[in-house]
């Protein structure tokens, strides 16, 4: 599984990244977590706000830090 956290480096984006990494660790799933900070790449996903989370190329959430449960649901489905 390929998880991308999109965000230019603001506080919320860092929090989102930490959260995703933590959930991936705890759920013991095979996944790479990558932080995307390049604005053009972020815009390439068509997101109009950050932090945004993209899992296997699909935009899962935009403009907010997801809850732990939400991340868990995305990973497991």
């Amino acid at each position, binding site marked *: 599984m390929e998880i991308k956290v*999109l*965000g*230019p480096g*603001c*506080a*919320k*984006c860092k929090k989102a990244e930490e959260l995703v990494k933590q959930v991936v660790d705890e759920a013991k799933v095979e996944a790479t977590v990558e932080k995307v900070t*390049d*604005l*053009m790449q*972020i*815009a*390439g*996903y*068509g*997101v*109009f*706000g*950050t*932090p*945004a989370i993209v899992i296997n190329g699909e*935009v899962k*959430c*935009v*403009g*907010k830090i997801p809850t732990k449960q939400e991340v868990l649901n995305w990973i497991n489905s």
Partner: protein
Amino acid sequence: MSWKDELKPLGIIIAVFFAAFFLPVGIYRFDNALTEGLELVKWYAQEHVLLCLVPAFFIAGAIGVFISQNAVMRYLGAGAKKIVAYLVASVSGIILAVCSCTILPLFAGIYTRGAGLGPAIAFLYSGPAISVLSIILTARILGPEIGIARAVGAVSFSVIIGFLMELIFKKDEAERSAQIHLPEESSTPRPLYQTILYFFFMISILVFANWGKPDLQQGVWWTVFSLKWIITSVSAVAFGVILVLWYSHQAWKIGLIAVVSAMFAYMLPTVPIIAFSAGFIGLTWSASTSGEENGSWVYASWDFTKQILPLLLMGVFIAGFLLGRPGNEGIIPNEWVATLVGGNSFFANFFSSIVGAFMYFATLTEVPIVQGLMGSGMGKGPSLALLLAGPALSLPNMLVIRSVIGTKKTVVFSLLVIIMATISGMIFGMI
């Protein structure tokens, strides 16, 4: 052990050592500048933090949580009419630009996926100048006249600059797809009148609590001034009722806060700041224990406070150290400021536009800096020029923008900002 890695800390320590060794303590100009810096921080803490900044943070937080950003962003998408996109982009900063997380990604998004270069530029330019926090602080510290000029200037020039950019770069518009993802709604939708009343009373608390003492002891302004705490209290009560009726706060909590605040107001009528603080401390408590939505409101407000307040007070100290309080001198002699940016000459406006365009200001710190400069003899035209060119652009910002729209467009954009800021400064200086 690699000695090479140690070179940097060594350099820093040597630099600090020499700075400390030759520290000009005891020299009047330096000591005085330190005092000025501390005095200015004290003045901000006494006059502006509790009555102005705290409510402003609550309002900014509420905008992020209770106003649907989606509804606005929809007009910035690829399908939107150009003219609508321009208008929305030029004013939407007031509700969208509350956080640095928003401005740049949204700018890149509008440019590549949305309404295109012009509206993206319009948003980028006006956003930082008309975010609710900067409007409030500019008007409070520098006066309503320059506060309004800044907002109006930013909005109108953002449309002009965006339009010119699109005209100049007609050919190479980026390729777009209609697929965009808007931020999710964080709150349940409410009828519009409820949202309007909610913000109306919150803003009314802010405005009347900060009502300045007019020079004349008569007339409407004086009447409002003498009644300011009564009007503030009435607004606060109305706000409390709205919170209970529509925003799921519990009546007994709001009632308790009202009683405690009223008690402080009765016991210490000369120090209204205590009753006021009791009110917002109570509000924080009630909101953080009344459901998820109100909780996010408190969290968002706290987030702004955490991000902005320390930097702002640091900026205030630096401004005081360099330039002194209004009427006093800091480390920089007043004549220097007056020579460079005094009056309303073309050079003064042009110079402050260029400085503003390249210099980096942390959020809101442009306000104490301009205050210091004005106190040291900067003209009001150049002040506006600096306020218009300053927060929209900085050297680090130019590099980020360049990664999105390329070198050529960035250069043209920066030039347009400098030219427009100079012109508007000169016009404002003449009025």
